[in-house]
C-alpha cells in the first residue's frame, strides 16, 4: 500500500497540495497567514517578489478554465517564477500519449512544480504519486474530488470578514454531489473549527452519505439559511438537467436560487460567496451577486495571494516578514 498522506515529504514539510482533508489545522493557518503577507504585493507599484526566481512552474490544464488558470499564472509571476501554460484537450490525449508519458516529458524539461487540473477525481494524487522527487504538485481541481486552493481562498475571505472560525455557521448551497469546491470547503471549515456547516440542495444533488463529510443536510433553502454568517452558492451545471437531476433552471431558481428576500433569513451581516463563474438568475439573483453583502470579486483577488502562499510554501520558501 502506498503511504496515504503523500502531501508531506520525509521531513514533514508540505510538498504537494492535493486535498485539505488530511492537513493539520496549523498548516491551514500557516497558509492563511502567509497569504496575508502576500496580499499587499498586488497593490505595490512593482507587483513582484523574487522568492521563486529561477523556478519553472507548469500549469497543466486538462480541463478548460479561465479564472483559476490566470490567477495561478499571476501568482507564479508575482513570485518571479517562469510559467508555462499547457492546455490539453483530454479527448486527444486519451487516443495517444498516456498521462504518465506526458508527465515524463515535462519532468525532462526540469520543471519544479505542476499545477494540475483534470476532469478525473484522483488525477492530482495519481500524478503526485508518480512524479520525480524534486517536483511539487498543486491540485487545481480534480473531477468532483477537491479544489483545495479554492477552498483556502474561501477560508481567507471568510477570515478577513469574520476574524474567527469557532463561532460561525456556514451554508453551502447547490450541487454538492458534483462539487470539488464544496468538498474542499467542507474539509477546511471543519478543520478550522467551524461548529455548523450546512449543505442545502435537492436530494438529487446531495450525496446520500453527505453527513459523513461532517455537515448538516437541508433540503429547504429557507431553513438552511436561517441565522448563518456565510452563504456559499455553487455553480449549477447545465448537465444536471439532461441527467434528469433537475427539471429546469427556472424551477431550481425558485427553490434554491438566492434572492434578497431569502438572504434576509441569514444574519444581517452575512457574506455571500460564489466560486464563479456565476449563472445569474439560476443560482443567484443579480442584485445579490452585485449587492453589498457579496464578496465574490474579493474572492478572485484573494485567490492570487493564497496561491502565492501555497506555491511558496510547497516550494520550501516562506515569505519572511
Amino acid at each position: 500500500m502506498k503511504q496515504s498522506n503523500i502531501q508531506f515529504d520525509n521531513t514533514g514539510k508540505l510538498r504537494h497540495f492535493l486535498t485539505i482533508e488530511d492537513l493539520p489545522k496549523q498548516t491551514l493557518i500557516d497558509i492563511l497567514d502567509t497569504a496575508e503577507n502576500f496580499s499587499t504585493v498586488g497593490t505595490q507599484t512593482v507587483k513582484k517578489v523574487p522568492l521563486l526566481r529561477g523556478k519553472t512552474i507548469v500549469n497543466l490544464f486538462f480541463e478548460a478554465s479561465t479564472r483559476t488558470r490566470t490567477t495561478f499564472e499571476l501568482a507564479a509571476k508575482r513570485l518571479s517564477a517562469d510559467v508555462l501554460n499547457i492546455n490539453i484537450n483530454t479527448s486527444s490525449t486519451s487516443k495517444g500519449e498516456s498521462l504518465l508519458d506526458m508527465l515524463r516529458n515535462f519532468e525532462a524539461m526540469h520543471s519544479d512544480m505542476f499545477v494540475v487540473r483534470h476532469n478525473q477525481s484522483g488525477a492530482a494524487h495519481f500524478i503526485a504519486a508518480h512524479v520525480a522527487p524534486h517536483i511539487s504538485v498543486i491540485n487545481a481541481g480534480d473531477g468532483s474530488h477537491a479544489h483545495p486552493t479554492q477552498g483556502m481562498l474561501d477560508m481567507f475571505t471568510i477570515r478577513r470578514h469574520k476574524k474567527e472560525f469557532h463561532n460561525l455557521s456556514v451554508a453551502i448551497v447547490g450541487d454538492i454531489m458534483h462539487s470539488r469546491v464544496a468538498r474542499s470547503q467542507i474539509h477546511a471549515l471543519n478543520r478550522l473549527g467551524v461548529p455548523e456547516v450546512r449543505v442545502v440542495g435537492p436530494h438529487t444533488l446531495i450525496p446520500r452519505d453527505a453527513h459523513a463529510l461532517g455537515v448538516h443536510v437541508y433540503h429547504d433553502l429557507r431553513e438552511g439559511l436561517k441565522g448563518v454568517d456565510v452563504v456559499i452558492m455553487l455553480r449549477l451545471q447545465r448537465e444536471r438537467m439532461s441527467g434528469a437531476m433537475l427539471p429546469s433552471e427556472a424551477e431550481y431558481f425558485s427553490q434554491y436560487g438566492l434572492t434578497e428576500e431569502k438572504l434576509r433569513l441569514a444574519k444581517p451581516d452575512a457574506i455571500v460567496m460564489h466560486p464563479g463563474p456565476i449563472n445569474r438568475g439560476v443560482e443567484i439573483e443579480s442584485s445579490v451577486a452585485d449587492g453589498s453583502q457579496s464578496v465574490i470579486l474579493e474572492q478572485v483577488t484573494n485567490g492570487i495571494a493564497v496561491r502565492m502562499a501555497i506555491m511558496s510554501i510547497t516550494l520550501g520558501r516562506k515569505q519572511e516578514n
Partner: protein
Amino acid sequence: MKIAITNGHVIDPRNQVNQRCDIFIQDKTIIAIEHAPEGFKADKIIDADKLIVSPGFVDLCARLREPGHEHKGTILSETRAAVASGVTSLCMPPDTIPVLDTPAVVELIHQRNEEAGYCRVYTLAALTRGLEGQYLSEMAHLKDAGCIGVSNVMHCIPKPQVLRHAMEYAASVDMTVFLHPQDEGLANHGCAHEGIVSTRLGLVGVPEAAETQAVANFLMLVEQTGARVHFCHLSTARAVQMIGRAKYDGLDLTADVAAHQLHLTEMDIGYFNSQCHVQPPLRTQRDCEALRDAVASSQIEAICSDHQPHDVDAKLAPFAATEPGISSIETLLPLSLRLVNDGLLNMTELVDRLSTTPAEILGINAGHLGVGAMADVAIFDPTQHWILKSENLISAGKNTPFENWEFQGKVMKTLCDGKLVYDASSTA
C-alpha cells in the same frame, strides 16, 4: 504411471472423508483409497505428511485473457498460475475478443489449453450474440462445442423480452445461465460503492440498488421461465438476503462470491488505490460481514477468484480511468483459508466451497476423490506463512491489492488428470 500420495490428511466432502489416509492413482484415475490394491507398485510416491490432500479446486470465474488480450495474460501463463494455486478446473467467461459466441473460439481455447497442458479449462458461451443483448447466440452449437453454460457477463440486455427469451432458450438446451447482477443504468458507469468513500473522493458511485434491482429482475424471470441460474459475484448484504428468500420459497438457485469481497471494503480504496478498483465494487463492512456469514452458512455456495490479470498500464491512471479487476487466482486459497482461521469455516467446508460445490454448479465430474474419480488433487500446507510480493506472482498480471499481506497456507503440489502439474519444491 502409478502414483501413491501417502501420509496426507485427506479431505473429501462428497465422500465424507476427513482423515489421514493414502491415495492410489493409476494413469488418470484414483483407483483406491486407504489400502493399496493388491500388487500396486507406485512409480512415484508423494509424501504428504502434515499436508492437506484435497480434490483440486474448481474456479467458477477466471479470465485468461486469450484470445484478445494476450498482453495481459495467456492461456499458458494463467493456467500455470492456476495449478500453482491448486486450481485444476476453471471456467472462463465469454468476454474474450472475439466474443465466445462461435464454436471456432471454443475450439481455439481448447486447443491452446491442450498445448499448455496444466489444467482443465471450461468455457461459458455468450448468452447473446456478441454480448450485445440483441439476438440469441447459437447455444446448442456452442454446447456441442463444449461450453458448459451461458452468460452475458456484465453486459446489459436492454430489452427485458430478449432476456426472457434467452433464459427460456437456455432452459430448453439445458444450460445454466450465469448472471452478473448489476443494472447498467443504475450503476451509471460508477467505479466505487456509492457510500462514504465515493462521497469523500468524488467518485461516481454504484448504488446498492444496481445489484438488488438486477437480482429482483432476474428472480422474477427465473420464476417465469424455469431457467437454471447461478448468481455470480454477489457484493451486497441485501442481495444475499433476497436470494436466500427466493431459495426458501423454492427456487433452485446457486450463488458465488469473489474471495476479495470477503476481505476488503470500500475503505481499502484509501486515496484512490486503483488496485481496489473492482466490479462489482467493494462495499461496506456490513456487506462484507454478511457475505462472510453467507459463505459460512452456505447461503452462498461457492468462492471464486474472479481472476482478472492486467498489464501494468491498466492500473496507471486516475482511479475511474483504470481497468477494474484483480489478478486473484493465487490468493484464492490463502484468502479462503483466512475464513478457517477466523473460525467461519472448517477445513471440510472450505474444500466444499472451493471444489465440491463449484464442480456441481458447473455440472462437471470433479471436486471429489472417490474411487474412479479423475485424479485432480491439490496438496497444500495450511500452516505455512508467506508474504505476498506482486513481483513473485506467477500470473502475468501483477495487479493485486494484497501486496505485503501476510498469508497462511501454500499449495505444495497439484495433480491434474493424474499428472504432477505443479511442484513447489521444484520451482522454488
